[in-house]
């Protein structure tokens, strides 16, 4: 190459520096907004599940670690302690992801202090439209889980029926429920005492 290698390397490095600088700048501007957006979304989901809770406090890492341990196959993304107006533990919000027909089904569970399911919603899923999505569009299916007794065990969950034609998707909801019950027994029951 007749031209000295430097003549080739300098422009590339300069472009990289310029690009990195501009991107870092935009990131620092947008980053707080992104975090705020995510927090707001999380808050909204938890609110919808634990209506009368006022604030949500993310539990510390050990609790989350123990919860993940107990959950086994499913993935516990977050465990929140729901507090009422004067700071008493009202119940728990759990974000659980389990494997559905094609990808991850993310759900949010609201439990009261003694493990009764207050409400649950499906945050995001990628099931086949029209088939897998029936776990969300048919309320009867989810209502069963609301009817679960407090501190329900795995056998109660197994007793609930599934949607025919969407076995894989409904099994993801069941796995999620089993994980929630396991986490509650192992971690939350003891940690539920008045702060």
């Amino acid at each position, binding site marked *: 190459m007749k031209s000295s290698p430097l003549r080739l390397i300098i422009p*590339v490095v300069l472009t*990289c520096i310029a690009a*990195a*600088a501009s991107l*870092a700048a935009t990131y620092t501007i947008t980053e707080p907004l992104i975090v705020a957006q995510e927090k707001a979304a999380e808050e909204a989901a938890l609110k919808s599940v634990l209506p009368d809770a006022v604030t949500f406090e993310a539990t510390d890492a050990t609790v989350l670690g123990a919860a993940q341990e107990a959950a086994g196959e499913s993935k516990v993304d977050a465990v929140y302690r729901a507090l009422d107006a004067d700071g008493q533990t009202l119940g728990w919000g759990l974000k659980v992801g389990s494997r559905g027909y094609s990808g991850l089904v993310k759900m949010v569970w609201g439990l009261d202090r003694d493990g009764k399911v207050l409400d649950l919603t499906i945050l995001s899923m990628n099931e086949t439209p029209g088939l897998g999505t029936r776990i969300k569009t048919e309320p009867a299916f989810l209502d069963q889980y609301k009817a679960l007794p407090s501190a329900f065990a795995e056998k109660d969950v197994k007793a609930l029926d599934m949607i025919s034609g969407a076995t894989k998707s409904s099994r993801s909801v069941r796995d999620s429920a089993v994980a929630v019950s396991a986490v509650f027994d192992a971690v939350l029951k003891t940690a539920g005492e008045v702060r």
Partner: protein
Amino acid sequence: MLLTVLKAIGALSVLGLAAASMLALAARKFHVDVDPRVEAIASALPGANCGACGNPSCFSAAEAIAAGRLPVTACTAGGKSVAQAIGALMGDDACDVVAAVSVRHCGGGTNASRAYEYGGVQSCGAVAKLAGGALVCASGCLGYGDCVRACPFGAMSLDERGLPVIDSAKCTGCGICVRECPRGQISLLELVSDAAPVVVRCNAHNKPRDRKSSCSACCIACKKCERECPADAIHVIDLLAVVDYEKCTGCGTCVEVCPQDCIDLNAGHLSVTGDGKGKSATAGEQALAGAVSGD
């Protein structure tokens, strides 16, 4: 805030530096000293990678020519102009090249009667395997266009009778269509010098009596053309009229005198006095002949 900016700049510029220096180093260390002549020859070649010269691509042909393994006129597709350009590059004067053109020895198409209705794979190769093809005549053109698809120069197209019309301006004589045609070995398509003015549109060798039943545009070996031809350039050999292109002056008497009209113009050449009327000549060929002579 400043820390992330600095970290980002640091990381990306290190990456950019690594990438660019790797490339610069590679450009130097792996510098392939390509013989400049090879690139010049490669650019002179048509670049259609047609394989007529036996090399997979024009680039490899250029390498062979530059190394002297192939003659300057190796590129049949390129014809005279490419040969002269390479000759100039290689220094020795290129000998005169007889440019070749492909012609079709069949006037059948819709005139030929069909042995059976064929609805299978639309390729001559396929239909030829089925009892020798859908035509009663064993050497006629099957008309499914394998040659048209194979031609890298787009010189061929199927006319309304289902026969391939060859545009000799584009045809470079690379011979791929002759290889591609299932009837190629009995030279249904044949490479003749591009100066060939007339073509016999038949290549059947069975008895004329059977031929008549299988096709209305076939040569019946009546020898009229042989008797009338002033330059004694056309003879009936093995029951089929064959043109000897060295002697043929292109006067066109054979075209007029043939009762079956199965000798007509090789498209694009009109040293023939007649207006290229040969009934079996397709509209395309006549138009082309007319266009060339500018009338």
